């Protein structure tokens, strides 16, 4: 009987590993190995014709910390994340609550909001280029009706980052709304009715019942928005190329520039490692701390 149980256990183990292996192979080849290789690269100097590659420890990191552009880019990215995440989530939630209500042409409203999401980021950027172009752009055209002077939204350091932020919010809000809408549909209608009978106002119902029940979704969206605030840079290539004078440069764009414009792979690797560490810490907080405090259905 024990041999039978052993055989059964071994069979289960093999079965488990077989199921796991495709993901394991893919993740190893395309995530774990590159991450470790990046960490490795970041510890070596950049090879030139005169000086060969050598181990430098954390020198690449300290060089970066001494680089004012790096700090400007970090500041830009914090600002970018700090604005796009809460604003796009807030708009998404408001739109979802509205589109989930008893409004007419509900299907149309949902589709309209979702449209920016299905556009590729490059196409969206081109669309916004058409809004922002000084003189010809829609914004300037509208401005000129009211006698406002022409503004080069993308061309001046004070407005460039904000112009980028607005495009991102426009792109993301509709996407997040879909998640909120899906979550709202799972809240039974009777909860609203029970709250109605108890005399709860629409606001009380939203605050005490709906928002807590949306918490898992909010958390999920927040993590996604955070990741997007690091990885979504397509529109920079079209709109500003990080300029003027690095005013709209974001981390990933800077990494790309380091690696493929300045051919400084070790610095790019060092920056990548830092981004990965920060994101990993945030993910750990999400999964360990916040998940415990959230009610999952």
């Amino acid at each position: 009987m024990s041999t039978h149980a052993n055989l059964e256990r071994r069979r289960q183990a093999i079965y488990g590993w077989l199921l796991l292996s495709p993901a394991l192979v893919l993740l190893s080849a395309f995530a774990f190995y590159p991450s470790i290789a990046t960490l490795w690269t970041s510890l070596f100097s950049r090879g030139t014709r005169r000086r060969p590659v050598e181990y430098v420890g954390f020198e690449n990191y300290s060089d970066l910390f001494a680089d004012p552009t790096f700090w400007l880019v970090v500041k830009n990215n914090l600002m970018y994340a700090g604005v796009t995440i809460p604003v796009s989530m807030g708009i998404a939630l408001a739109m979802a609550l509205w589109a989930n209500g008893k409004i007419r042409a509900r299907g149309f409203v949902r589709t309209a909001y979702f449209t920016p999401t299905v556009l590729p980021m490059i196409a969206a950027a081109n669309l916004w280029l058409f809004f922002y172009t000084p003189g010809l752009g829609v914004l300037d055209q509208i401005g000129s009706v009211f006698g406002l002077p022409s503004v080069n939204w993308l061309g001046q350091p004070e407005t460039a980052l904000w112009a980028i932020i607005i495009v991102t919010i426009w792109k993301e809000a509709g996407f997040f709304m879909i998640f909120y809408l899906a979550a709202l549909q799972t809240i039974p209608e009777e909860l609203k009715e029970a709250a109605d009978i108890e005399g709860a106002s629409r606001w009380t119902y939203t605050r005490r019942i709906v928002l807590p029940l949306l918490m898992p979704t909010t958390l999920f969206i927040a993590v996604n928005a955070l990741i997007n605030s690091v990885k979504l840079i397509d529109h920079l290539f079209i709109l500003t190329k990080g300029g003027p004078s690095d005013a709209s440069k974001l981390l990933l764009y800077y990494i790309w520039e380091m690696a493929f414009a300045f051919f400084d792979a070790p610095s790019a690797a060092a920056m990548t490692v830092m981004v990965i560490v920060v994101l990993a810490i945030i993910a750990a907080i999400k999964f360990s701390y916040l998940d415990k405090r959230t009610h999952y259905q």
Partner: protein
Amino acid sequence: MTTSTFVKLDGIAKRWNGQLGVEGITLDIPEGSFTALLGPSGCGKSTTLRLLAGLELPDEGQILIDGKDVTTSAASDRNLSMVFQSYALFPHLSVAENVMFGLKVRRVPKQERLEKLHRALEITGLLGYEGRKPGELSGGQRQRVALARAIVAGQRLCLMDEPLSNLDAKLRNAVRKDIKKLQRDLGITVVYVTHDQTEAMSMADTVVLMKDGHIQQVGSPEDLYSRPNNTFVAEFVGAPPMALIESTALEGFGDDKTVGIRAENIQIVPAGTGRMRCKVNESEFLGAETLIGLDHDGTSGLCVLQPGLSLMPEGDEVEINFDDGNLHVFDDAGKRLAG
């Protein structure tokens, strides 16, 4: 129990895009009474209850609660509580928070809130479960939380929509008694929706039997059982339901009527002395008695009860007899004729 009207429905109708929900609902519900809305699924029981609660607005008619016209009032202005079939508990809130939700909304002071909570949990036997989430409770406990939430505010009118349908049979019997006792002790008026005639008959002072959006009969359980208004009521109420016999199958009743008879009024008699000769088509042992189903042209649901275990082989022929005094006569439209 007082007899003054507490809730009054007058000519209520509700349709959705022309599709019938309910129609011509006129009902007087005395204060402190237990009224059951009974009927098959889809007959408009829930709709009637929701109209009363203010969760739907009627297309026609008038609703009065405690003498006040509330036809178009918001649900919260009607001073009533409700127990939903699904319980509608807030899944992220603890038992205590669920029960106190309405008190908090209505800004009842904290001390009073806790006192009321304690009392409601005491009555429903939930003390010690204050901190649990609904997901950590059994079905029966969840049901009691819903009850506690309904009684905690001390509203005089409580509406219940099939509150027992998600419980197993044994628990259902126990909770049935608890609800009835609760209603008596608190002296509240309960309007109770159910599709289970046993439930309605055993709990209610007044049963309102509905079909296809219309009221078929309003009366005490006794009334519905012994004086059914029409053949639908006759066949819906009682276990087993009343047997119906076409008058052509009997002598002396003409040929366009229907005659009803209950199982307990039928006797099996020796061959040659009965009024009808039937074939046994099933026999079912119920414990204290045995139910024997009978077949005969022009009859439906004909059966007879025999004491103890007395199964009969299928296909046997038996003769039955009954007194004219126990017969219910319905006209060709199914309506009860005087008597």
